[in-house]
């Protein structure tokens, strides 16, 4: 390891491992399966991006703050079913807003529970948010009675959802445009506002942040509320695309979101990272899934691959600091 430090190419490779991974993946798959670069597949990849980037974006803030959140499974499920349920009584705009507000509230509630308990270590946070997740999922189950809710059954207009779900501008889906706008806003929030910096500072050194005059509890609640809002957006993106919502539709989003964040290079220790890096992680993971589909590997192997990528990414990340 010590020898390579002088080599500028290796240094560049180390810094931009994800980018290199993406390029290698594209080249290898394109050689093995030329269809990969065709328009229809490109369209597919853009479509597959769908809800995951939103979830990963929110998770980035929590992880930069030095915590973790497993409750987005519950939030995505609960927001999805409630939004569909509210389309009839409130109309589509009202349902949309109510869904997003509900997400923010649930996230804030997580933060409130955690700060009241004084959960400081990642272990405590992990288990409490897991408990919250089963509460939210249970609420969603109670609400739906484990039936599948279909948005197309509602009597009022659902044009926003159909636009989000299936309309393209050129080859770019509308939902991706929305996402890019949110991404830019969030990036600016993280880099330029005092609250964004407070979250990063909290992850870097809690005591220092406290002594610098930041209200740590409020910052923590803010980070979780952002995550909740983003999960709600992910949920809406999901239900627009599949046009249904069940009480378990959020399953596996938590590990995938954490995976994207970690692969992107945001360390779990907190303090470091950026939303743009997370996006590289999202692109890598989505491309990986697409490539494995193109190469006709089973979906089970994709789960193996994701687990392996998660373990290896954390391991490499840790080695950097040793």
């Amino acid at each position, binding site marked *: 390891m010590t020898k390579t430090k002088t080599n500028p190419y290796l240094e560049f490779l180390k810094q931009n491992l994800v980018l290199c991974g993406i390029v290698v993946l594209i080249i290898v798959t394109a050689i093995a399966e030329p269809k990969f670069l065709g328009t229809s597949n490109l369209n597919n990849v853009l479509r597959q991006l769908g809800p995951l980037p939103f979830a990963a974006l929110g998770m980035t803030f929590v992880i930069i703050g030095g915590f973790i959140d497993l409750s987005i499974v519950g939030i995505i499920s609960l927001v999805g079913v409630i939004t569909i349920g509210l389309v009839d009584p409130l109309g589509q705009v009202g349902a949309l807003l109510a869904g997003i507000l509900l997400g923010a509230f649930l996230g804030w509630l997580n933060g409130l529970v955690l700060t009241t308990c*004084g*959960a400081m270590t990642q272990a*405590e946070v992990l288990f409490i948010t897991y408990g919250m997740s089963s509460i939210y999922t*249970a609420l969603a189950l109670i609400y739906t009675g484990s039936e599948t809710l279909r948005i197309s059954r509602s009597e009022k207009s659902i044009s926003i959802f159909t636009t989000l779900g299936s309309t393209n501008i050129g080859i770019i889906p509308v939902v991706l445009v929305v996402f890019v706008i949110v991404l830019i806003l969030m990036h600016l929030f993280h880099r330029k506002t005092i609250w964004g910096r407070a979250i990063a500072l909290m992850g870097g050194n809690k005591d220092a942040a406290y002594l610098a005059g930041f209200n740590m509890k409020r910052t923590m609640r803010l980070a979780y509320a952002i995550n909740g809002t983003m999960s709600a957006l992910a949920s809406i993106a999901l239900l627009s695309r599949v046009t249904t919502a069940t009480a378990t539709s959020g399953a596996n989003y938590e590990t995938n979101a954490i995976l994207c964040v970690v692969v992107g290079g945001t360390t*779990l220790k907190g303090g470091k990272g950026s939303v743009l890096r997370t996006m590289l992680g999202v692109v890598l993971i989505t491309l990986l899934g697409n490539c494995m589909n193109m190469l006709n590997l089973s979906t089970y192997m994709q*789960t193996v691959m994701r687990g392996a990528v*998660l*373990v290896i990414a954390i391991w490499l990340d*840790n080695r950097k600091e040793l």
Partner: protein
Amino acid sequence: MNAKANVNKVWKVISKQKAVVAILVLMVMMLFFDTTFYTAYNWLDMLRSTAILEIVAFGVTVAVICGGCDLSCGGTLCLGGIIAVMMVNSGIPIPIAILVALLSGAVVGFINGFLVVHQKTEPFIITLGMGMLLKGICQQLTDAHPLTCKSKGFMQISNMKFFGAVPSLVVYMVILFVIFYCLMRFTSFGRNCYAIGGNYEVAKYSGIKVVPIKWAAFVISGVVSTLAGVLLSSRMNTGSSVYGDTTGMLVNCGVVIGGTSFAGGVGGMIESFIGLFVIQLLTNCMNQLGVDSYYQRLCEGILIVVIIGSDCFGRKLKRERV
């Protein structure tokens, strides 16, 4: 004055033994309902249904006492069962099949130990990733179909009864409990585990071989998880990749609910037994009262949040007092 001191003492005991209090509350509550709760059959059944999780918990507790954590136990459990069933089906003698299954658990534990202990990564997230990877492997092995075991003898392992009434799973659980209790209480390995969990640096400088011992704790956890997997597959007479989906989180939650702290160094087998028993007791009580399964899940989530939250709260008060 004396009364106040007594109240304080009682309060201290209660706050330390939340799980015992929860059990007592549930048992008193059940006195008021006319159910079959207080029958030998029900209690034996309860012990039998919780046996698998308890066995997993014994292994995980060793890792937790060392200051680690093993969320991959769900995946390991699944893998152990599937390997055993596959080998038995292909005509290999049952003892050898079980031995190979246990070996696979040892390998998983070895890898976990390498990453967590040797490379000093965060145990929670690494084992979470490992669990995901193992799940994928299990799906790949079985093509996501349940595998029925063709051997009668294999099914007998968990389904026979000793003395005409006691299910064999309960007997295995008791035997393993005694073994692990003695291991942690009366051997130098067990004492060293407590020392490592209590203070890693101090243990290191006292001449305890910290790395091999903590590593061994992860291997033990893996082996015991696969053993539980074999017993579960024998009980169900099938190996399936859907086993163990929630086991990882549930067992670790149970261990913490019992009073074994993730900070390491405190707790023990009795505590873990009680912790998981609370969850089972709650489920049983609600089944007896005919509570809807969605509400059961809600109560389970609330139980986890309340007990782990109050645990954190206690530590927070302690921190502030110092």
